[in-house]
């Protein structure tokens, strides 16, 4: 059961903090991914949205109940609720790139040290107040306040919060310090950058400009929202009410869906899907995201200080087998690199192939025959997820070439606790994101919990330069070289990009497969077909 928790946990709970990483690379490039969103459309139904009804969505979010804070959502459920309550300057496109939302126009200077943002006209908050530059400044200052003690501080602390300039009633200038101009905006804001009024309070006055206003919030149990008539997309949302229900158990959530107690469930564990695919009343949405699963080698500890052992570990994993057995086939082989949807991604690097013989001989050369290592996995109830099926399958593969992997299962608190960066070998997963943002959390010098301890001077220099280069043409070669270095010397075994699976009753409209993680979170787009 513990392993089941971690499996299912990965997809959904992974959003908790990983959510902060969500970003596409392409705001500045205007990138549009040409790979079509895949997955099968489960049903052909009326495509004209209907108004009315209450949509009930079931989520699973581990032990944390979370709150309603727009700028500090510490759980996946809080981020999901945030998508209902708050609108941001940007929103995710189907390709996981940030599109303008409340912002009408965004100008950036060449080294991305100064951002000028203009709000759309006549925007309104839930309580009727017009959204002005003052609210934008208030929101920016609040989300970057060190006293907020936000887990996302790492991204937003570069905002020069004392020098924001109000140019006019709708326009604000935001300076960025530290040469990290492409980090703080906009990708980071899409998940936790809700624009809120100056009289905002997360508990007593949780007001935003999202498609729904709050009606009731019972932490860890349910939250109910009602339609916001003056939402900035006219004519939307379609639903009268939205209800988000917290579950602790996947089976309970699916039973609720089958018995009609909920209409929709996001990020369902793949092994649950097989039986449901044939179910007439259920549509399955398969999203080929660029979220990834990895095994992180701690390069600061033996035996991974030895380059040959590091290489051997990357060669001894049979990626397809792990996908088939641990992800029920719902993943695509990855090449130890993240951010494949980023326009700067280096797709010229050849895929690393499974080569147990080479791995065995590298281990032998390094003098580590009969090696035993400890692989630590969390239960996936918090931001990062391990998943012991992954650990078990990998351990079995390692055994074949004479490496013993001892699986150490710990609880989420321990996994992310003070020893978080000290595990010798650990499982990890991340939601899809741009190269710069993922690097900022995972294995660059900006990361506050670099599990791999990867440190390379040339990589750092390239990363530092890329993060302040607005021009895509100029940035691409920098990232290409940085990824080449990661591929050769990095400590991540990124073995799969994962598909996320969403389930909904047939009467839920507006759901289509995306390259993003969250078609089910587009509450302004979803509707109920009451004639079904």
């Amino acid at each position, binding site marked *: *059961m*513990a392993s089941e928790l971690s499996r299912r946990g990965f997809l959904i709970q992974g959003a*908790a*903090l990983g959510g*902060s990483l969500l970003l596409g690379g392409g705001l500045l490039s205007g990138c549009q991914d040409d790979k079509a969103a895949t997955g099968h459309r489960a049903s052909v139904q009326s495509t004209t949205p209907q108004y009315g009804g209450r949509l009930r969505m079931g989520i699973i979010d*581990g*032990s*944390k*109940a*979370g*709150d309603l*804070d727009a700028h500090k959502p*510490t759980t996946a459920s809080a981020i999901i609720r945030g998508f209902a309550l708050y609108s941001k300057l940007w929103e995710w496109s189907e390709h996981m790139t940030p599109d303008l939302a409340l912002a009408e126009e965004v100008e950036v200077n060449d080294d991305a040290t100064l951002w000028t943002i203009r709000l759309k006209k006549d925007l309104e908050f839930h309580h009727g107040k017009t959204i002005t530059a003052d609210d934008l400044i208030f929101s920016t200052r609040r989300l970057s306040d*060190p*006293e907020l*003690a*936000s*887990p996302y*501080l*790492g991204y937003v*602390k570069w905002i020069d919060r004392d020098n924001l300039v109000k140019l006019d009633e709708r326009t604000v200038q935001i300076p960025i310090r530290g040469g990290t101009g492409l980090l703080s905006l906009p990708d980071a804001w899409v998940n936790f950058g809700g624009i809120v009024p100056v009289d905002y309070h*997360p*508990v007593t006055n949780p007001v935003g400009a999202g498609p729904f206003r709050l009606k*009731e919030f*019972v*932490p*860890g*149990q*349910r939250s109910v929202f009602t339609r916001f008539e003056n939402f900035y997309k006219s004519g939307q949302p379609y639903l009268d009410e939205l209800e988000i*229900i*917290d*579950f*602790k*158990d996947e*089976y*309970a*959530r699916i*039973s*609720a869906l*089958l*018995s009609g*107690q909920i209409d929709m469930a996001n990020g369902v564990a793949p092994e649950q899907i097989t039986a449901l695919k044939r179910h007439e009343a259920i549509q399955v949405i398969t999203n080929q995201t660029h979220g990834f699963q990895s095994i992180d080698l701690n390069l600061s500890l033996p035996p991974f200080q030895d380059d040959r052992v590091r290489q051997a570990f990357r060669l001894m994993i049979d990626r397809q087998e792990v996908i088939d057995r641990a992800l029920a086939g719902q993943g695509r082989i990855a090449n130890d690199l993240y951010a494949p949807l980023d326009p700067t991604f280096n797709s010229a690097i050849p895929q690393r192939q499974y080569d147990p013989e080479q791995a065995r001989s590298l281990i032998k050369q390094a003098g580590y025959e009969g090696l035993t290592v400890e692989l630590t996995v969390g239960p996936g*109830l*918090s*931001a*990062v997820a391990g998943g012991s099926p992954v650990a078990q399958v990998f351990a079995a593969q390692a055994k074949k070439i004479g490496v013993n992997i001892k699986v150490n299962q710990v*609880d*989420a*608190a*321990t*996994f*992310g*606790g*003070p*020893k*978080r960066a000290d595990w010798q070998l650990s499982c990890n997963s991340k939601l899809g994101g741009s190269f710069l943002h993922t690097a900022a*959390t995972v294995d660059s010098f900006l*990361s*506050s*919990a670099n599990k791999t301890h990867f440190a390379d001077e040339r990589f750092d220099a390239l990363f530092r330069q890329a993060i302040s280069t607005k021009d895509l043409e100029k940035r691409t070669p920098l990232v290409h070289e940085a990824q080449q270095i990661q591929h050769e010397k990095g400590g991540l075994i990124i073995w799969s990009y994962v598909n996320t699976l969403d389930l909904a009753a047939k009467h839920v409209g507006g759901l289509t497969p995306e390259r993003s993680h969250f078609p089910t979170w587009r509450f302004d787009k979803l509707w109920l077909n009451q004639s079904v």
Partner: protein
Amino acid sequence: MQNLELKDFSSVTPARISLPAKAGPIALGLAEAAEHTGPPPSHVRKKSIVSANLLKWIVKRTLSSILGLFAISILVFVATQALPSDPARVILGPEASEEAIQTLHHQLGLDQSLAAQYGHWIKPALLGDFGISIDSKMPVVDLIAGKVKNTLILLGLTLLVLIPAAFTLGIYLALHKDALLDRLTISFLIFVKAVPSFAIAYGLVMLLSTLVFNLFPAVSLIQANQPLWSQLQFMVLPMLTLVLSSLPYLVRLIRGSLIEVLQSDFIISAHLRGLDKKQIIWKYAIPNAVIPAIQAIALISSVLLGGALVVEVVFAYPGIGSALNAAVDIRDIPVIQAVVIFLASGVMAINLLADVVTVLLTPKLRTA
């Protein structure tokens, strides 16, 4: 996962107040009957002495319970510090920067001494203010009040079904010992007992709400703002699960103790004196057999109070067990403290009640 299982009752002997069946009310009753011709005992005077003694005893027990609560609150507080990681790290997640973690540490007062932290907690707690949840920023009392209510109602409904069912079945089987029905039922009960309670729960869901019949909702999505009596349909499956998982123990206990009583000397002598068979069973045998069952019911209630986690998970039932589990998981100390205090007081109250009932049913103890 092991904590999702209901406790195994069978290894626990309920007879904390040991009562030799031979010396129960019947023996005294018979003695009374024998002394029928003697001077009438002064019931009134005797009774008042009894209740004064009993009252004194109850007050003493209550006071020691309150002291116990203090001890428990300190113990739990210290135990939370011994867990790896701390609330700030858990809330902020594994990727938060050290500066954010330190800021939150300070805001939560986690950088103060243990004694100071306990002091900050206990002062308002004495006045009924258990602080703010670290996780959801809501007052702890508001957060758990609804869950306490749900748990108590589920417990009440379970006992309401469990006790009559167990007594009827236990007495019937004892009176028909070794008959075919007795043997079959006992085998069946042993089978039910061997099935883990989560399997019972899933079985009931499949049978009564998804696959076979569609009688009851699969999950208990109780609305906090509506009266519970209008939502009783949500209670059926969790209640049935708890009844089924507690029933085998209680039935076998009642059956066993009644069989034992029926074979004891004073029942045999009652038969020899020519008393009516029905009268022997109902007036003398059963009241004596009930006493171990009372302690067993107290034990079941104590466990269900905090340990009905399995139904809370399977049916998404919003009770106190999963609230505690989640709070421990994320080190939400104010919630842990409040729930533990509630559970400890509940267990103490249940035990006190059970002991009082036992004493009242046992003249020997009553008059001691």
